[in-house]
């Protein structure tokens, strides 16, 4: 069909474009203080160009979440914070949970208003075994990046069939990661979804890297240096229980709101 719109000025549907509804996965920056400079400094230290993980983000869209702040707190200038976020390869696009004054300031610098976070009920995790070996974690750390609005199905699973050796790192962005060879000490596997290692897992494994608390880690031989799900981590300094160390096991977060790492043997 010829697409000359000049010949059909009265055409109700333009052929050159179409407006459709779309959704975008975002990372959220949950503000815990109204001191914008302090936030900017901390973000820069953790993810800035000279930090340990300058490539953590890859031009990811970001929403700045004010919902944990007291609405009475004074509005701070967003511009320096936005500059820092951009230098960390983040693209701030929206603000949510802000007071009317703060929201007006955000709109003025080109951000949009995002709806408040919707708490979706978590799917119930069925019991794997009558009495699973339950291991709780003592070190619990919540990263800044925590909540994620994820509605769009991600790309298919990433499959790696070569061994991952010390110094190598794999990131399965927005999907699950399946590794068919060993992950050695000093190697790092990161996925936004689940991580399956059908071989010894001796390095670091981080599932739910963008905050998916339903993500899990599976391995046929679990002896990791570090495991983390949605930012809740545990290092090998704190040894795993003998029932799971070096065995086929899975790691998940408890679904009781406590967000403890649960490590249990896989029963066959």
């Amino acid at each position, binding site marked *: 069909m010829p697409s000359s719109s000049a010949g059909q000025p009265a055409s109700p549907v333009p052929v050159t474009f179409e407006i459709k509804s779309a959704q975008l996965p975002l990372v959220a920056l949950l503000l815990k203080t109204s001191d914008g400079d302090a936030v900017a400094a901390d973000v820069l230290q953790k993810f800035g160009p000279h930090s340990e993980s300058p490539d953590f983000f890859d031009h990811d869209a970001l929403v700045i979440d004010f919902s944990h702040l007291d609405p009475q707190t004074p509005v701070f200038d967003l511009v320096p914070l936005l500059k820092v976020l951009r230098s960390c390869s983040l693209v701030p696009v929206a603000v949510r949970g802000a007071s009317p004054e703060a929201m007006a300031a955000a709109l003025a610098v080109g951000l949009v208003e995002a709806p408040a976070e919707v708490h979706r009920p978590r799917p119930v995790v069925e019991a794997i075994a009558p009495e699973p070996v339950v291991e709780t974690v003592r070190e619990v750390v919540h990263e800044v990046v925590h909540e994620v609005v994820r509605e769009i199905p991600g790309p298919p699973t990433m499959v790696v069939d*070569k*061994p*991952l*050796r*010390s*110094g*190598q790192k794999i990131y399965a962005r927005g999907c699950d990661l399946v590794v068919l060879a*060993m992950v*050695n*000490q*000093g*190697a790092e596997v990161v996925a936004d979804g689940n991580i399956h290692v059908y071989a010894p897992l*001796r390095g670091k494994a981080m599932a739910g890297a963008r905050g998916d608390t339903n993500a899990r880690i599976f391995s046929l031989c679990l002896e990791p240096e570090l495991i983390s799900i949605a930012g809740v981590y545990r290092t090998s300094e704190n040894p795993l229980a003998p029932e799971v160390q070096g065995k086929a096991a899975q790691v998940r977060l408890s679904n009781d709101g406590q967000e403890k790492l649960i490590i249990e043997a896989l029963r066959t």
Partner: protein
Amino acid sequence: MARIIVITSGKGGVGKTTTSASFATGLAMRGHKTAVIDFDVGLRNLDLIMGCERRVVYDLINVIQGEANLNQALIKDKQCDNLYVLAASQTRDKDALTQTGVEKVLHDLGAMDFEYIVCDSPAGIETGALMAMHFADEALVVTNPEVSSVRDSDRILGMLSSKTKRAIEGLDPIKEHLLITRYNPTRVDQGQMLSLEDIQDILRIKLIGVIPESESVLQASNQGVPAVHMQGSDVSEAYKDVIDRFMGVDKPMRFTEAPKQGLLKRLFGGK
């Protein structure tokens, strides 16, 4: 086309240069025209171990920078007809090692009918080590039976499969061989060293040989003689086995079991 073999390890002091000297010598003793290149620019050890340090006039960097040609820089070994040494420079900075320069040297050696080119890598994971491995067809990963050496070898194996020419251009991967040096079965039995099985469980590449811990290695390097020439020593035998396996001969591993001690020795102690 010459076959390029890199001798690498990541960690220093595990026996790369000793292995380069003995491996290259072993290949030459079988009649293959072989060149061995020291990539440790700034330190220079290979010529000492090969016993040709007094004959070094031009080195690898001179050739790369066009100040000498290969015929001038290659030092012919006195004991082996088919063996030539290309020494490293002690006075230059390691940045003088360029990828195009190294490629040209390797190519020119191939044109001179060399069958094997053995590249003695420096320790670490910087330019020198990357240059030594970049054009390799095969790699001998030298590992000592201790945790840090195994970890560094693992790192090097990762780089061999991602940073080299074969990896970048998607050609057949580099053939990797594991060579365990300074192995002492008695200390393994006492739990002071990692066992062969432990090392292979972590690295998971094919074992090409086990070189026992021995005083004759130190003796050989002080005399400037490759250890493979120390007739009758277990180290020499072990290196010859490595060459055989490299040539495709199936040989059982030797020197991996602790010698049985007699009753008297056990009672009264001994070495």
